[in-house]
């Protein structure tokens, strides 16, 4: 009978999961993969826009993953096709984390702002992110990448603010912040100098989680053809373009698919390792 934990002690201390205290080994794969993705365009063996094989040629010769629908080298396009995804996702994650950090700290210090943020998050919960990004990019035809980034940031901020506000509430109620507030410090000073420095661990974890969410959203936008346009090399677009020839050369679809899968998994692993262990709050919020 092992359902509940020990009954001899009244309240067990915060559950410690193995490996949580040393996040480095769990963060490393994500960092390596991101570095490889960013350096990828310089490592390509062939030009990404010139056919080197027959269309959908099987792996062999100097094309270890074969050719795509126009006979372009799949390996080269996979190496080159992740940078924009990673850069856009990083940009979204940085913006969301920064905006959420400030708004979250303000929400903790000024409950009226906190209530507005809560209601906004409740409203945006009714809007699936994929549809939201479609709505914004189609209503703003000339927006390009800016439209995708704007939509991803707007859709991501409310949830992130909730998380920061939750973590900032105990800090905002602590004696030294009250003392500073009573001492006449302005809101900006309280947010930047008093509250946020104590939330470094939370913000780092939040950044990781937002990066995971951004990769999902930017990749899905690419797949729906509202991101990079042909002939650009992009993992999501490659999956879409080459799925017609999936039986002839499965690698043209598998390779970018595995690349997106590995990126999402490794970044998620890293983000999970960065979440501060706070006893009760075992449920992370994206």
């Amino acid at each position, binding site marked *: 009978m092992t359902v509940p934990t020990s009954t001899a002690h009244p309240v067990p201390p915060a559950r410690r999961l193995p490996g949580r205290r040393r996040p480095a080994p769990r963060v490393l794969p994500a960092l390596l993969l991101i570095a490889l993705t960013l350096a990828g365009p310089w490592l390509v063996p062939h030009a990404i826009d010139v056919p080197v094989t027959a269309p959908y040629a099987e792996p062999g010769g100097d094309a270890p993953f074969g050719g795509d629908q126009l006979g372009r080298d799949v390996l080269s396009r996979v190496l080159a096709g992740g940078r924009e995804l990673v850069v856009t996702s990083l940009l979204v994650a940085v913006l969301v984390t920064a905006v959420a950090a400030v708004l979250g700290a303000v929400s903790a210090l000024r409950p009226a702002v906190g209530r507005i943020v809560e209601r906004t998050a409740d409203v945006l919960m009714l809007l699936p992110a994929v549809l939201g990004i479609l709505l914004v990019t189609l209503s703003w035809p000339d927006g390009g990448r800016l439209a995708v980034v704007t939509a991803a940031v707007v859709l991501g901020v409310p949830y992130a603010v909730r998380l920061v506000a939750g973590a900032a509430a105990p800090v905002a109620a602590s004696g030294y912040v009250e003392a500073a507030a009573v001492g006449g410090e302005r809101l900006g000073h309280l947010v930047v100098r008093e509250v946020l420095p104590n939330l470094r661990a939370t913000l780092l974890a939040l950044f990781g989680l937002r990066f995971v969410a951004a990769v999902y959203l930017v990749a899905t936008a690419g797949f729906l053809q509202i991101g990079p346009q042909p002939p650009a090399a992009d993992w999501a677009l490659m999956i879409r373009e080459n799925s017609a020839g999936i039986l002839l050369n499965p690698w043209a679809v598998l390779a970018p698919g595995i690349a997106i899968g590995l990126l999402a998994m490794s970044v998620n692993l890293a983000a999970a390792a960065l979440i501060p262990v706070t006893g009760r709050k*075992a449920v992370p919020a994206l």
Partner: protein
Amino acid sequence: MAGSLIGAVRRWPGRGDEPRPGPAVVRLLLRVAAVLARRALLLAVLLAFVFAAVELLPGDAATATSERGESTADLAERRHLLHLDRPVPERFREWMTGLPTGDLGTSAHGEAVADLLARPFPNTLLLGGLALLVTLVASVALGCWAAAEPGGKVDRAVSASATGVLALPEFVVAVALMLVFALWTDWLPAVTLTEADGSPASWKMLVLPVLALAIPQIGWNVRIVRAALADESTAPHIETAVLDGLPRHRIFTHHLLPGALPTIAAGIATSTGMLLGGAVVVETIFNYPGIGSVLAGAVTDRDSPLVAGVVAVTGAVITGVLLLADLVRAWASGGRT
């Protein structure tokens, strides 16, 4: 001891005697009404937000769909057809009052959005509903299995796989499933064939799209179920139940799950949005006759009114599911807030 046991049983509504039935019923009705009103208001705000987004962003439906060489007169005519030449407050009123009556506006090509969605949307609801059901059953089952032995082999394996799959985009899962189960082994069809009425021809055609949608959401919800059960297992009434020597399955079904129910319901309800959003993507891969194909056309045509209509219907569906979760919480907390 006896006191806390009674307390534990009382947590499961419908058991034990309800004190003062009259006021309790009134209180429950009032709470249901408040929950309904709140959800309706949130939906109305979303619809206003959608209108504002389409309105404020540069470009409108008439110019977005214009072809080269089109004269200004043609453009003005289409603007008139789409009512874009009327003042903003009037169009806003038209949009907000039309929605409850089923009028979702006019697409950029002048067709009624409601007509365009009438056939594909039920298919998408079927796909999303099945995926939601699979998500619910699988995540509760896996979560309980993992929670049966905290820190054990099963627990670690389930948690690790859940973390692995929850961040995967649906289209990656869909392509992998299609490759393995349709193209290499030929067990399930890779494309959806439709009947004359536009519905999928066989249940087999639903298996892969449902799995592709459900797998990431199962990963997400298993963690929520697992964490909710872990929280609940530290409660005093569970200790009492264990000390009383109740069988393990009974502790799960009668003591742990009822307490964790509101958290689980909220988690599953939140997945509805992800499922409906993901359906758009998965449908295009399996050629499923849902709103995905309509939206794919909207992307090519830059048809923002059509997308706004889809967002409105989807928002209403999600509101319905969240409302159910609210009611589960109100019911499970049985008079307490």
